[in-house]
């Protein structure tokens, strides 16, 4: 059993009268500890695939298993529990809660998990320290730079120890230097904590960091290769 098993997944969007075939039969298996990049041109289905794996959306046909739970077979409620406990998200546009401070944003998922206040503050501080943001813990997102916001987003995604972190073009809004630092951080976490990352990109520099590169084209896997990662730091 692999950590993630995507089997023959088709995803169609009904857009008015047209049917958009976003994924046309995708088969992928991902193991714990992989640092996988999903690459492909715009419209190739990267976001769609990540959303399906993250249980944010449902497949048209085929199956997706995360940690041996078949997502299409569970209730909406169970799906939101899966997102809460098993999956961490990092989005292109950071998507932090603007009214919460960096620390509170990181605490937030633990709050939903009913982790006691003391424990969650301790852990949130620890993680913020790990992503190098301890000094800015009490700032709200609008007062942070893009790179800092994305670090908070990574901290929020990993704080409760999910089975996998899904990052949809996490560096697309960052300049290349800042993007490289963020990837260093993710790769370090991947190595030191054996944390599984799947991220999408169409930036070759970002692909260089991956240990596995899956190329999507027109909703299908065009290539899937293991490779040597550009080392962290």
């Amino acid at each position, binding site marked *: 059993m692999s950590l993630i098993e995507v089997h023959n997944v088709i995803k169609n969007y009904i857009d008015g009268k047209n049917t958009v075939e976003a994924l046309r039969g995708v088969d992928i298996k991902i193991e714990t500890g992989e640092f996988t990049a999903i690459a492909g041109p715009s419209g190739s289905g990267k976001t769609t695939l990540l959303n399906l794996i993250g249980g944010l*959306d449902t497949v048209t046909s085929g199956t997706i298993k995360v940690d041996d739970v078949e997502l299409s077979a569970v209730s909406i409620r169970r799906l939101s529990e899966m997102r809460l406990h098993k999956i961490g*998200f990092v989005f292109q546009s950071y998507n932090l809660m*603007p009214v919460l401070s960096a620390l509170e944003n990181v605490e937030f998922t633990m709050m939903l998990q009913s982790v006691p206040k003391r424990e969650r503050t301790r852990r949130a501080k620890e993680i913020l320290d790990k992503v190098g943001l301890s000094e800015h813990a009490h700032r709200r997102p609008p007062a942070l730079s893009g790179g800092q916001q994305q670090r908070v987003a990574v901290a929020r995604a990993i704080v409760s120890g999910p089975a996998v972190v899904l990052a949809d073009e996490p560096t697309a809004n960052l300049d290349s230097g800042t993007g490289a630092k963020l990837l260093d951080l993710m790769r370090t976490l991947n190595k030191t904590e054996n944390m599984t990352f799947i991220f999408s990109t169409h930036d070759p520099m970002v692909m260089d960091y991956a240990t596995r590169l899956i190329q999507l084209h027109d909703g299908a896997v065009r290539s899937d290769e293991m490779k040597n990662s550009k080392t962290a730091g």
Partner: protein
Amino acid sequence: MTIVLIAWRNIGRNRRRSILSIAAVAGAMALLVFMMAFQKGSYLSMINTTVHAHSGHIQLQRTGYFKDGDLALKLDNPEALSPILRSIKEIVAFAPRINAPALVSKDAKTFGSLIWGIDPVAEANTSTLTKVIKKGKYLSAEDKTGALLSDLLAKNLNADIGDEIVFIGQGADGSMAAGKLFVRGIFKFGINEIDRVVMAAHIETIQEIFSLQDSASEIAVILDSDSARPLVIDSLKQRLAERSFDNITVLGWNDISPEIEQSIEIDWKTGLIMYAVLVLVVGFGIANTFFMAFMERIHEYGILLSLGMKSLTVSLMTYIESALLSAIGIALGAVVGIAVTEYFAKKGLTIPDAEDLFAEYGMDPVVYPALSAEVLVIATAIVGIITAAMALYPAWKAGRLEPVKALRRI
């Protein structure tokens, strides 16, 4: 908890819209408090007018008199009741009266009439009779031969100041009761039932002629405020019983004129419906601001859903945000409403262009809005229930959001 915190902080984000929501709720609340208090105040002045015109807040009568109007059903030795009446501090004045039906004539004209036997001094403190004299003078304390004629009765008799009026009726013992009086003054209450038939004269004269020595048909009692009425009635009943005064009935003005109490009740209920409709109309505007707040948050709700927050919690958070705005609005509106109402409760609110008309009938043209817990509770309930209902729609929409669609909304 944290969702309350987020909802609270969200309110601070779009200040202008939050202020708009709060102002709309507060405005509705303040208006409601003031209008209800004004309405209550106008009832009080209506009650005041009735009570002071004649009935008093409370009357003591011989049991059975109210129903039969039989002159023989009288209060014996009304003086004996004075100590009891004086012992209750809410009672500010009281006056004994006799109500004797009779025919009154001048020259060849004769009309059916009701003669009020009054104690000029006590009556002056108890009713507005002294204030509604339109011509001539009120009776002096010892004037045993004078009479006050109601306006229409005087017209019908073609009587004027100084004219001699002859009257004839039946005494309490069945004997014939007849006498003559001289018109000292003409009065007009603006209450048709009184202005058509009443002639007032000194109580001692009427007692003697109608064989009612040392007795009265009723004692009218004035209180410092109508709100004390139920308590005073209770303690009067108790004290009368303690001192073995049997066969005395204690009536409130609302027993004597139930139609006034009924019309107040109907007016109040109609008012409540009107207020509810008014707040409902304002409520749709408020609902719109709640909905705008929700629309702005869709993307964030998408984030929360993607983090694993339950739909129900998202829905609750939306509801809390609206509820907080409403609660602030209601509290603010109550403060403003109370302040404005209290200001006018002290100063009084003159009904425009009606001063002369009111003054003619001895009525106060000034309404003093009357604030009460009832007014505040009902206003809070109306505004609270309607805004709470308006907040349901965005909360319901929030609960149905799908994460991907919500995230795509920027």
